[in-house]
C-alpha cells in the first residue's frame, strides 16, 4: 500500500486476533501438530507400558544373539551359528540382489517391448501388445506361484536332471552350472574392465571436441567395445588364462560343485521382470509418442540416419517423459520383491518375519523393515532424480 492510502485512512482496520487469518492459520497448525505428536506419544507410552507388563523383551540386543536357523541361499557366508544381525544382512543382500538384477532386466525387456509396440511390423507390434496386456493384468502373486509351480512341477528330480548344455543341469532343485575356480587373476580382469569403462568417458569427450572442431567423426562405439573386451582379455591372458572350472556333479541328493540358482530365485526374478516389464514398455511407448513427429521429420530433413535420429533427437526428448514414471516402477519392483516370502525365497521380509517370531520383538523387526525399505526407496529415488536432472530439457 502506498503512503497516501495510510494517510487517507484507507488501510483496512486490523481484524480481531481470532479473526485474523494469519493468526488463525498458525493456531490451527500448532493445534494439529500437538494432536499428532500427542497421539503418537500416547501410543508409544501405552505400548511400552503394555510390553513391560507382559514381560516382552525390548531393544535391539537380539541382533547379537545366535540366530540358530538355516537360510537356503545367501550371497555372503552364513551358518546357523551366526547372529540375527548377520541373518538380517543376508536377507538384505538377497533383496538388493534380486531388485538390482530385476531393475536391469525389466528395463531391457520393457524398452524392447515398448519399441516393439511401435514397430511398423504388424506381427511384432501385436505380439508385444499381447505380452503387455496379458502380464500387466494378472496379479503378480499369481504369476509368482505360476512360475514357481512350473519350475517345480515341470522339472525332473535331481537324479533325472536334464542336461541342457555340457555340465549345465536343470532339475527341480534349480539350475546348476559350472563356474571358474576362484583365482587372483579374476580380480585383475575386473580391475581392467573398470579401467576400460573409465577410459571411455574422456575418449567420448575428446571425440566430440574433435568433431566440433574439424567435422571428422571418430568411431567411439567400436573403439569403446574394443577397450571393454580387449583390456580384461589382455589381463586374463597375461595372468596365465586360468581355465579351471568347478563343475556340478550329482552327489547323494543333489548337485555339488559349480554354482546354482534356486527355483525360488528364478521364479521371483522372472515374475518381477515380466510383470514390471509391461509397465516399463508402456512408459517407453508413451515417452516416444510424446515427441512430436515433426522432430523426426526435421531430423530426417537434416539427413540423420534412423539410429542417429532416435539417439540424438527423439530419445533425449522422450527421456524427460520416461524417467519420472520409470522411477516409480523401479520403486515398486523393489518393494514387490517382498512377495518372495510366499514362494520361500529368503528375502529381507522373510528373514525379518522369522526373526520376529523367534524373538517376539515385532516392533523392532517391523521398524527395521520399514527403515530399510524407506532407505532403499529414497536411494533409488534420489539416484533417478539426479539422472532426471541430467536428461531434463534445458530451456534457454
Amino acid at each position: 500500500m502506498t503512503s497516501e492510502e495510510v494517510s487517507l485512512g484507507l488501510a483496512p482496520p486490523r481484524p480481531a486476533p481470532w479473526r485474523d487469518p494469519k493468526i488463525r492459520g498458525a493456531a490451527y497448525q500448532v493445534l494439529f501438530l500437538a494432536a499428532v505428536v500427542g497421539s503418537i506419544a500416547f501410543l508409544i507410552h501405552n505400548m511400552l507400558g503394555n510390553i513391560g507388563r507382559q514381560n516382552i523383551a525390548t531393544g535391539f540386543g537380539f541382533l547379537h544373539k545366535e540366530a540358530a536357523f538355516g537360510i537356503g541361499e545367501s550371497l555372503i557366508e552364513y551358518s546357523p551359528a551366526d547372529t540375527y544381525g548377520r541373518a538380517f544382512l543376508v536377507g538384505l543382500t538377497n533383496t538388493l540382489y534380486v531388485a538390482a538384477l530385476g531393475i536391469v532386466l525389466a528395463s531391457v525387456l520393457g524398452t524392447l517391448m515398448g519399441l516393439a509396440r511401435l514397430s511398423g511390423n504388424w506381427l511384432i507390434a501385436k505380439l508385444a501388445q499381447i505380452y503387455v496386456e496379458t502380464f500387466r493384468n494378472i496379479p503378480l502373486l499369481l504369476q509368482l506361484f505360476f512360475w514357481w509351480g512350473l519350475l517345480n512341477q515341470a522339472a525332473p528330480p535331481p537324479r533325472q536332471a536334464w542336461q541342457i548344455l555340457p555340465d549345465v543341469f536343470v532339475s527341480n532343485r534349480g539350475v546348476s552350472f559350472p563356474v571358474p575356480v576362484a583365482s587372483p587373476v579374476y580380480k585383475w580382469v575386473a580391475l581392467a574392465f573398470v579401467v576400460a569403462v573409465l577410459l571411455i568417458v574422456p575418449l567420448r569427450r575428446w571425440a566430440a571436441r574433435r568433431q566440433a572442431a574439424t567435422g571428422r567423426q571418430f568411431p567411439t562405439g567400436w573403439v569403446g567395445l574394443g577397450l571393454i573386451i580387449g583390456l580384461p582379455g589382455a589381463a586374463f591372458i597375461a595372468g596365465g588364462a586360468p581355465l579351471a572350472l568347478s563343475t556340478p556333479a550329482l552327489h547323494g541328493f543333489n548337485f555339488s560343485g559349480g554354482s546354482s540358482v534356486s527355483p525360488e530365485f528364478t521364479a521371483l526374478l522372472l515374475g518381477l521382470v515380466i510383470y514390471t516389464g509391461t509397465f516399463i514398455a508402456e512408459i517407453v511407448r508413451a515417452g516416444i509418442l510424446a515427441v512430436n513427429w515433426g522432430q523426426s521429420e526435421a531430423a530426417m530433413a537434416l539427413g540423420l540416419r534412423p539410429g542417429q535420429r532416435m539417439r540424438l533427437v527423439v530419445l533425449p526428448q522422450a527421456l524427460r517423459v520416461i524417467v519420472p514414471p520409470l522411477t516409480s516402477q523401479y520403486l515398486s519392483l523393489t518393494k514387490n520383491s517382498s512377495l518372495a516370502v510366499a514362494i520361500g525365497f529368503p528375502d529381507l521380509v522373510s528373514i525379518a518375519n522369522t526373526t520376529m517370531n523367534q524373538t517376539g520383538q515385532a516392533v523392532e523387526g517391523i521398524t527395521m523393515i520399514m527403515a530399510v525399505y524407506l532407505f532403499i526407496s529414497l536411494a533409488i529415488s534420489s539416484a533417478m532424480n539426479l539422472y532426471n536432472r541430467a536428461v531434463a530439457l534445458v530451456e534457454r
Partner: protein
Amino acid sequence: MVRTLMNVRWIRLAAVLAMIGGLAAAKPAIAGETLDKIKAAGGFSCGVPTGIPGYAQPDAQGVYSGFDIDVCKALSAALFGDPGKVKYVPLTAQQRFAALQSGEVAILSNNTTWTLTRDTDLGFDFAPVVFFDGQGFLVTKKLGVKSAKELNGATICVQPGTTTELNLADYFRSNKMEYKPVVIEKLDEAVAAFFSGRCDVFTGDSSALASIRVGRASNPDDYMILPERISKEPLAPVVRHGDNQWHDVVDWTIYALMQAEESGITQANVDDMLKSEDPGIKRMLGVTPGMGKALGLDEKWAYNEIKAVGNYGEMFERNIGAGSPLKLERGLNALWTKGGLIYPMPIR
C-alpha cells in the same frame, strides 16, 4: 488396481502393524481383566492352526473340528455352559504370537511348543501340555533312506517361525551334516512343495507328519516317517503373561479333562456320575460346591466341558487316535497310571 495388486504382501505387514497398534492402544491389562472381559462379551477368540488334519481343519461348510478345536470348545463350555461361544481365528506359525501379544485372541490352541524364550522374552504363559510330541522327518520311500543320519545334503521343506526350524539347524550342526532349507510360510504351500518333489524331506512334529502323510499324500504308502525324533515338542495352549486368573481357568479346564479320564467320567456317563458317591468326583462336577467359585466360574464348569467334548482320552481317540484316520498311538500321551505323561493336578 495396480496398487492393490502390487501390495498383497504389504497387507500382511499392515496386519502385523495393526496388531502392534493394538498393543499400543490396548488398555493396560490388570490381573483378572481377561476373564471379566470375556464374560461381559459372552465369548472369546481362540487362535488355531490354519489346517492340520486331526488338530484343526475346516470342513466344506467352514466349520472347524479337531483336537486343538476341542480344547477351545471345552474352555467355552466351562465358561458359558455352551461349547459354541468361541470365534476361531486361523493363524500361521508366524502370525500367532503377534496375535496373542496384541490381544486379538485370548488363547492360542495352536500346537505351540513350550520353550524358555517364549515363556519369558515373548511375554507368554503356558497352560498344561496337551500333547507330547517330537520332531521327525517325512520322506518318500523312493529316496531309499532309512535313518535321519543319511540326510547329508538333503533339501528340506520347513515352516518358518517354528521350533522345528531351529531344531533342524541344531540337529544338522551337531551331526556335522549340510542341508538346504526351503522355508515357506503357509503350511499348504510347504506341503505342496514337498509332494511336488521340491524337497527331499518335510520336517515337523511327528504327529503333524502323520497327519500330512495320511491326509495329503495321494498314496500314503509311498511315504514314510524316519525313526529318529530329534527334539522334545511339548505342545500346550498359550495365554498372555500377567493375567493369573485367566491362566488358572485355562489350566484347570485342561486338568479337569485329564482328571475325568482318570476318574472314568465320559461324555456318555457324566450325568450318571452326578450321583457318584466318590467325594473327588462330587467336588469336580460341582455336586459339592466350591471349585467353581474358586475359579470364578459356574459350579458346573467341569460337568459342562465333559458333556461338550468328553474326557481327554475321548478327545484324543476321536480326533487323532484309533477313531480317526491318523491312528496315532497314545504313547507318551497316555495317563500316568498307564505309563504315559498325562498327570492332572488334584482338583480340591
